[in-house]
Protein backbone atom coordinates (compact mmCIF):
# COMPACT_ATOMS: atom_id res chain seq x y z
CA UNK A 1 0.00 0.00 0.00
CA UNK A 2 1.14 3.51 -0.76
CA UNK A 3 0.72 7.20 0.05
CA UNK A 4 0.07 9.61 -2.86
CA UNK A 5 2.19 12.76 -2.91
CA UNK A 6 0.62 15.74 -4.74
CA UNK A 7 2.90 18.57 -5.87
CA UNK A 8 1.13 21.88 -6.44
CA UNK A 9 2.22 24.94 -8.38
CA UNK A 10 5.88 25.10 -9.21
CA UNK A 11 6.65 22.12 -6.96
CA UNK A 12 5.21 19.96 -9.76
CA UNK A 13 7.92 21.31 -12.11
CA UNK A 14 10.55 20.52 -9.51
CA UNK A 15 9.16 17.01 -8.93
CA UNK A 16 8.82 16.42 -12.67
CA UNK A 17 5.23 15.25 -12.15
CA UNK A 18 2.08 16.36 -10.36
CA UNK A 19 1.83 13.15 -8.32
CA UNK A 20 4.06 10.39 -7.02
CA UNK A 21 3.42 7.23 -5.00
CA UNK A 22 5.62 6.30 -2.02
CA UNK A 23 5.34 3.44 0.46
CA UNK A 24 3.08 3.79 3.45
CA UNK A 25 3.13 4.75 6.24
CA UNK A 26 4.97 8.04 5.87
CA UNK A 27 6.31 10.37 8.53
CA UNK A 28 8.44 13.53 8.17
CA UNK A 29 11.88 11.84 8.27
CA UNK A 30 10.66 9.16 5.83
CA UNK A 31 9.29 11.85 3.51
CA UNK A 32 12.56 13.77 3.44
CA UNK A 33 14.46 10.53 2.82
CA UNK A 34 12.17 9.75 -0.13
CA UNK A 35 12.79 13.07 -1.92
CA UNK A 36 15.70 14.21 -4.06
CA UNK A 37 17.68 17.12 -2.53
CA UNK A 38 16.15 20.04 -4.54
CA UNK A 39 12.62 18.94 -3.78
CA UNK A 40 13.54 18.16 -0.17
CA UNK A 41 14.67 21.72 0.51
CA UNK A 42 11.66 23.21 -1.32
CA UNK A 43 9.30 21.15 0.83
CA UNK A 44 11.18 21.88 4.02
CA UNK A 45 10.94 25.65 3.31
CA UNK A 46 8.82 27.59 5.82
CA UNK A 47 6.49 28.84 3.08
CA UNK A 48 5.53 25.34 1.87
CA UNK A 49 2.47 23.93 3.65
CA UNK A 50 1.46 20.28 3.84
CA UNK A 51 -2.09 18.93 3.83
CA UNK A 52 -3.09 15.34 4.52
CA UNK A 53 -6.35 14.33 2.86
CA UNK A 54 -7.26 17.99 2.39
CA UNK A 55 -6.46 19.11 5.94
CA UNK A 56 -3.53 21.48 6.53
CA UNK A 57 -0.98 20.46 9.12
CA UNK A 58 -0.17 23.13 11.70
CA UNK A 59 3.27 21.52 12.13
CA UNK A 60 4.40 19.63 9.07
CA UNK A 61 7.11 17.73 10.95
CA UNK A 62 4.21 15.99 12.75
CA UNK A 63 3.27 14.30 9.43
CA UNK A 64 1.86 10.78 9.80
CA UNK A 65 0.20 9.50 6.66
CA UNK A 66 -1.34 6.04 6.49
CA UNK A 67 -1.75 3.85 3.43
CA UNK A 68 -4.26 5.34 0.96
CA UNK A 69 -3.70 8.91 2.19
CA UNK A 70 -3.02 11.88 -0.06
CA UNK A 71 -0.23 14.22 1.05
CA UNK A 72 -0.27 17.58 -0.75
CA UNK A 73 2.58 20.09 -0.87
CA UNK A 74 1.32 23.65 -1.24
CA UNK A 75 3.72 26.46 -2.08
CA UNK A 76 2.59 30.06 -1.45
CA UNK A 77 -0.39 31.02 -3.57
CA UNK A 78 0.23 33.67 -6.21
CA UNK A 79 -1.53 36.99 -5.79
CA UNK A 80 -3.29 38.56 -8.62
Amino acid at each position, binding site marked *: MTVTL*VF*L*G*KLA*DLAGAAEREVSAPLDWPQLLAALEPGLQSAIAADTTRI*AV*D*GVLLADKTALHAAAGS*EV*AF*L*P*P*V*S*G*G
Partner: protein
Amino acid sequence: MAITVRLLDAPMNPGAMIGPFTNAHPGLGGVCTFVGEVRGGEGAEALELLHYARMTLPGMEALAERANTRFGLMGLLMLHRTGVMYPGEPVVLVSAAALHRRAAIDAVDFCMDHLKAESWFWKREQRGGEWHWIEPRADDYAALARWQSPQA
Protein backbone atom coordinates in the same frame (compact mmCIF):
# COMPACT_ATOMS: atom_id res chain seq x y z
CA MET B 1 -30.08 34.04 1.24
CA ALA B 2 -28.20 32.05 -1.37
CA ILE B 3 -24.49 31.42 -1.60
CA THR B 4 -23.20 30.14 -4.94
CA VAL B 5 -19.53 29.20 -5.29
CA ARG B 6 -18.13 27.65 -8.45
CA LEU B 7 -14.83 26.74 -10.08
CA LEU B 8 -15.16 27.00 -13.85
CA ASP B 9 -12.87 25.46 -16.43
CA ALA B 10 -14.45 27.27 -19.38
CA PRO B 11 -15.02 30.99 -20.15
CA MET B 12 -17.68 32.82 -18.13
CA ASN B 13 -19.97 35.65 -19.16
CA PRO B 14 -20.24 38.10 -16.24
CA GLY B 15 -23.07 40.10 -17.80
CA ALA B 16 -25.19 36.97 -18.02
CA MET B 17 -24.58 36.10 -14.34
CA ILE B 18 -25.35 39.44 -12.73
CA GLY B 19 -28.92 39.99 -13.95
CA PRO B 20 -30.28 36.66 -12.70
CA PHE B 21 -28.32 37.00 -9.44
CA THR B 22 -29.82 40.45 -8.80
CA ASN B 23 -33.32 39.31 -9.72
CA ALA B 24 -33.02 36.35 -7.34
CA HIS B 25 -32.83 38.72 -4.35
CA PRO B 26 -35.89 40.94 -4.28
CA GLY B 27 -35.89 43.50 -1.50
CA LEU B 28 -32.18 44.14 -1.68
CA GLY B 29 -30.71 47.60 -1.43
CA GLY B 30 -27.63 47.11 -3.51
CA VAL B 31 -25.46 44.69 -5.41
CA CYS B 32 -21.72 45.12 -5.75
CA THR B 33 -19.87 43.07 -8.34
CA PHE B 34 -16.19 42.79 -9.11
CA VAL B 35 -14.93 41.11 -12.26
CA GLY B 36 -11.19 40.54 -12.61
CA GLU B 37 -9.76 39.89 -16.04
CA VAL B 38 -6.49 38.68 -17.46
CA ARG B 39 -4.51 41.87 -18.03
CA GLY B 40 -3.18 42.47 -21.48
CA GLY B 41 -0.03 44.40 -22.24
CA GLU B 42 3.35 43.87 -20.57
CA GLY B 43 3.97 40.99 -22.97
CA ALA B 44 1.84 38.35 -21.24
CA GLU B 45 0.30 36.03 -23.82
CA ALA B 46 -1.67 33.75 -21.54
CA LEU B 47 -2.33 33.00 -17.89
CA GLU B 48 -2.75 29.53 -16.40
CA LEU B 49 -4.46 29.06 -13.08
CA LEU B 50 -3.83 25.80 -11.29
CA HIS B 51 -5.77 24.64 -8.27
CA TYR B 52 -6.02 21.66 -5.92
CA ALA B 53 -9.49 20.24 -6.37
CA ARG B 54 -9.59 18.76 -2.90
CA MET B 55 -8.98 22.07 -1.13
CA THR B 56 -9.61 25.01 -3.48
CA LEU B 57 -13.39 24.85 -3.72
CA PRO B 58 -13.92 23.96 -0.02
CA GLY B 59 -11.67 26.94 0.85
CA MET B 60 -13.75 29.27 -1.33
CA GLU B 61 -16.97 27.94 0.22
CA ALA B 62 -15.61 28.61 3.72
CA LEU B 63 -14.62 32.14 2.64
CA ALA B 64 -18.11 32.77 1.24
CA GLU B 65 -19.65 31.65 4.56
CA ARG B 66 -17.34 33.97 6.51
CA ALA B 67 -18.25 36.91 4.27
CA ASN B 68 -21.93 36.14 4.58
CA THR B 69 -21.79 36.02 8.37
CA ARG B 70 -19.56 39.06 8.71
CA PHE B 71 -21.51 41.35 6.37
CA GLY B 72 -25.04 39.99 6.78
CA LEU B 73 -25.56 39.44 3.07
CA MET B 74 -28.70 38.56 1.16
CA GLY B 75 -26.77 36.72 -1.53
CA LEU B 76 -23.22 35.99 -2.61
CA LEU B 77 -21.96 34.72 -5.94
CA MET B 78 -18.29 33.69 -6.21
CA LEU B 79 -16.97 32.30 -9.49
CA HIS B 80 -13.33 31.56 -10.30
CA ARG B 81 -11.77 30.27 -13.48
CA THR B 82 -9.10 27.59 -13.68
CA GLY B 83 -7.02 26.55 -16.66
CA VAL B 84 -5.48 28.59 -19.46
CA MET B 85 -6.92 32.05 -20.18
CA TYR B 86 -6.06 34.85 -22.57
CA PRO B 87 -5.93 38.65 -22.04
CA GLY B 88 -9.41 40.09 -21.60
CA GLU B 89 -10.97 36.89 -20.29
CA PRO B 90 -12.70 37.08 -16.91
CA VAL B 91 -10.81 35.23 -14.16
CA VAL B 92 -12.95 35.93 -11.12
CA LEU B 93 -16.38 37.32 -10.34
CA VAL B 94 -17.64 38.16 -6.87
CA SER B 95 -21.09 39.66 -6.45
CA ALA B 96 -22.71 40.48 -3.12
CA ALA B 97 -26.30 41.57 -2.51
CA ALA B 98 -27.25 43.32 0.73
CA LEU B 99 -29.76 45.71 2.20
CA HIS B 100 -27.15 48.48 2.33
CA ARG B 101 -24.35 49.45 -0.01
CA ARG B 102 -21.62 49.40 2.62
CA ALA B 103 -22.13 45.69 3.33
CA ALA B 104 -22.25 44.81 -0.38
CA ILE B 105 -19.09 46.77 -1.27
CA ASP B 106 -17.13 45.63 1.78
CA ALA B 107 -18.09 41.99 1.23
CA VAL B 108 -16.73 42.09 -2.33
CA ASP B 109 -13.55 43.81 -1.17
CA PHE B 110 -13.11 41.22 1.63
CA CYS B 111 -13.70 38.25 -0.67
CA MET B 112 -11.32 39.56 -3.35
CA ASP B 113 -8.54 40.23 -0.84
CA HIS B 114 -8.90 36.73 0.60
CA LEU B 115 -9.25 35.04 -2.78
CA LYS B 116 -6.04 36.65 -3.93
CA ALA B 117 -3.93 36.07 -0.84
CA GLU B 118 -5.34 32.92 0.75
CA SER B 119 -7.11 30.76 -1.81
CA TRP B 120 -5.36 27.74 -3.28
CA PHE B 121 -4.53 28.98 -6.73
CA TRP B 122 -1.16 29.02 -8.42
CA LYS B 123 -0.60 31.12 -11.49
CA ARG B 124 1.81 31.12 -14.32
CA GLU B 125 2.13 33.47 -17.26
CA GLN B 126 3.27 32.78 -20.75
CA ARG B 127 5.74 35.33 -22.17
CA GLY B 128 7.64 34.79 -25.39
CA GLY B 129 6.27 31.26 -25.48
CA GLU B 130 7.71 30.37 -22.02
CA TRP B 131 5.72 29.79 -18.86
CA HIS B 132 6.79 31.66 -15.72
CA TRP B 133 5.37 31.14 -12.23
CA ILE B 134 3.91 34.23 -10.58
CA GLU B 135 5.35 34.74 -7.11
CA PRO B 136 3.26 35.92 -4.16
CA ARG B 137 3.12 39.69 -3.73
CA ALA B 138 3.70 41.41 -0.41
CA ASP B 139 0.82 43.81 -0.98
CA ASP B 140 -1.65 40.92 -1.17
CA TYR B 141 -0.76 40.00 2.41
CA ALA B 142 -0.90 43.68 3.41
CA ALA B 143 -4.43 43.85 2.00
CA LEU B 144 -5.53 41.10 4.39
CA ALA B 145 -4.33 43.04 7.42
CA ARG B 146 -7.09 45.59 6.75
CA TRP B 147 -9.68 43.00 7.83
CA GLN B 148 -8.02 41.90 11.04
CA SER B 149 -8.96 44.63 13.49
CA PRO B 150 -12.12 43.76 15.43
CA GLN B 151 -14.04 46.72 13.98
CA ALA B 152 -13.02 46.36 10.35
